[in-house]
């Protein structure tokens, strides 16, 4: 759908339209090439792979956030949920000395529960999505620390009850981020598969179309016979589960408990999702854009690090690049004039999302 509507922004084939559509991708390509020739160590397959690997967790969380952003609003609880699942994994394997498989199941259940509560709050209890997930963010972040009394669970440590933690992260669990399959880390495979799945779901299935319809105009979708609430609830539950998967990847990377894990994932996921708005001139959340956004961000970070820039210089540049990408895809639209009828009947979808408010702004001078 995104690629279908993109063309509407400007007269077909115009330069403006081209840039609106490919702006981000072009910047991305330019950056890749630049780093390839300037950043020491960047020009290698392993380096490119580790870009994807680095973004796998945040990217998966962002994919969940994308699903919610379409039908509701950004899910602010993904970071906390990822962190929770790191803690759950650590408790399962280190504190209770259970297998990696069990840990994975517990993590997924944790994500399912958080997502379910979000869905309950938003769909059944009618709390505005942004508020509900913000509340859950605080609660889950608190819960995750409370579970371990703010301690870092690591094998051999003395537990609050005085006993010693016997267990440790199992080999097969560590393998998730540690081992490769066909030359690619398993975590990268997971990211790729989930990304593909979400993309197919949104772009190629009728459920995906309905999902967008529900986001675009719940009333219309409902009158067309869509079970609006199921889609909204589904999105938040999926987001919770995806966040917990992101947490599993983080855990298998950290290989022990870490109370601060996941905290940084939230802003990354938000940035990734929002960059996705600008990809292919979609101006709405979309799977392809989110995936590109993840790689885009990862490339910038990796390249700048390998150029030896200080973290604060990186933040500066990261922000600049983000703004630049935005300018390319949103600011050029003005010249593309809408037909008057559009102006006459201008009106946003009931559930207009942040990224879309630009249209409304355009309506009024």
């Amino acid at each position: 759908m995104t690629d279908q509507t993109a063309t509407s922004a400007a007269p077909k084939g115009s330069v403006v339209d081209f840039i609106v559509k490919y702006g981000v991708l072009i910047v991305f390509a330019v950056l890749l090439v630049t780093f390839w020739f300037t950043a020491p160590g960047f020009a290698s397959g392993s380096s490119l792979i580790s870009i994807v690997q680095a973004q796998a967790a945040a990217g998966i969380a962002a994919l969940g956030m994308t699903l919610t952003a379409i039908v509701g609003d950004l899910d602010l609880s993904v970071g906390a949920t990822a962190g929770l699942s790191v803690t759950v994994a650590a408790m399962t394997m280190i504190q209770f000395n259970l297998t990696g498989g069990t840990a994975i199941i517990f993590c997924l259940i944790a994500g399912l529960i958080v997502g379910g509560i979000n869905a309950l709050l938003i769909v059944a209890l009618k709390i505005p999505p942004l508020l509900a997930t913000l509340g859950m963010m605080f609660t889950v972040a608190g819960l995750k620390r409370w579970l371990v009394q703010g301690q870092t669970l690591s094998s051999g440590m003395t537990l609050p009850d005085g006993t010693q933690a016997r267990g440790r992260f199992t080999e097969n669990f560590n393998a998730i981020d540690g081992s490769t399959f066909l030359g690619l880390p398993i975590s990268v495979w997971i990211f790729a598969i989930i990304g593909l799945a979400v993309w197919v779901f949104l772009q190629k299935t009728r459920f995906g179309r309905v999902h967008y319809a529900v986001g675009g105009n719940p009333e219309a979708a409902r009158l067309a016979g869509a079970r609006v609430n199921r889609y909204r609830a589904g999105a938040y539950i999926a987001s919770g589960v995806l966040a917990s998967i992101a947490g599993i990847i983080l855990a298998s990377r950290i290989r022990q408990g870490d109370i601060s894990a996941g905290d940084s994932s939230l802003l990354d996921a938000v940035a990734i999702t929002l960059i996705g708005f600008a990809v292919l001139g979609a101006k709405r959340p979309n799977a392809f854009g989110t995936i590109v956004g993840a790689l885009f961000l990862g490339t910038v970070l990796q390249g700048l690090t390998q150029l030896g820039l200080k973290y604060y210089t990186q933040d500066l540049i990261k922000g600049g690049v983000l703004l630049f990408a935005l300018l390319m895809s949103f600011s050029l639209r003005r010249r593309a004039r809408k037909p008057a009828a559009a102006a006459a009947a201008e009106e946003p979808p009931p559930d207009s999302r942040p990224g879309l408010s630009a249209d409304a702004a355009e309506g009024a001078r």
Partner: protein
Amino acid sequence: ESDSGGGSGSSPAAEAENDFTLPDAAPDGFKDGLRVAMVRQSGIGDYFEQWGNGATAQMEAAGVTVENYDARGDNAKQVQMLTDAINSEPDALIVGWGLADSVNPKIDEAIEKGIPVVVYDAAVTNSDALYLSQDDEAIATLILDELKTQNPDGGKIGYVNVSGIAPLDSRDKVYQQFLKDNPTFSEAAKFGKYTESVANDTAAEAVATFQANPDINIVFAAYDELAKGALIGLRQVGMADKVKMYGVDISTADIQLMTEPGSPWVATAATDPANVGKIVARAAIAAASGVDLPSKMTIPAALITQQMLLDNGVTNMDQLRAALPDLATPEYLGASWIPTSA
């Protein structure tokens, strides 16, 4: 010092060999174009900035290229950066802080690839790596002894610390023991908040706590960002004059706070982060040059009192180094063939 959240796992069995010295003559391995990758988990506060600057300055002085990776407190990112660093095949690898179980697999991987590793303040298990650390037990003991001598007849302690962060946890152990051994001292309250801005967020808690426990007359803060927060709290509730504060770590910023007129911060135990960074750097240079290093060394800490700062008119780190030679330790892992930086 800091957060970081170092590995609370069993720290190396090996005994510290602090009398180890480098060969007088430059080894053949010491040539131009050496590359050292420095991967820090790092954290919030000045300590890390000074530490990094010290290390970088020392290596550049010795003509070594530094590849700087800074995970800014994100453990997962640090692991990722270690992967990248190892891929770039440096002549030596510095690992600063980090969770034991997170970094150890990577350290082993590096050593298998023949990259010598110098670890600072992360519980490393591989005895082929050099484990350097400031001795947190020693630091805590140092400052608590001072606390005891300055308050012979005990007192009510406001304890500022957060759990889950290795160096702070090991200081906590010493503190808990101290409470057991000295019944005249009692803990009136414990607070401290670890967020993106520690000092400011701890301040809010400090205010609340001091209002709830006006009888507190001693404050012990486990690292300087926490100390700053407590200080703001004391100032705001107007208890600064009747409370003595003891902290850990030192920086120009800390010196200023300690020497402010009427500052309750009377003493701190610390190593000079820049100096520590330089030591780690020298170790890395030696390792890169093929010197065989021991598997554990610890860096001594010094006690810095408000009195001493005022007497010597110390206003910043440089002056402190001049006034307190123990802080700078050029001989520690130093050698004629390693040019030192200013």
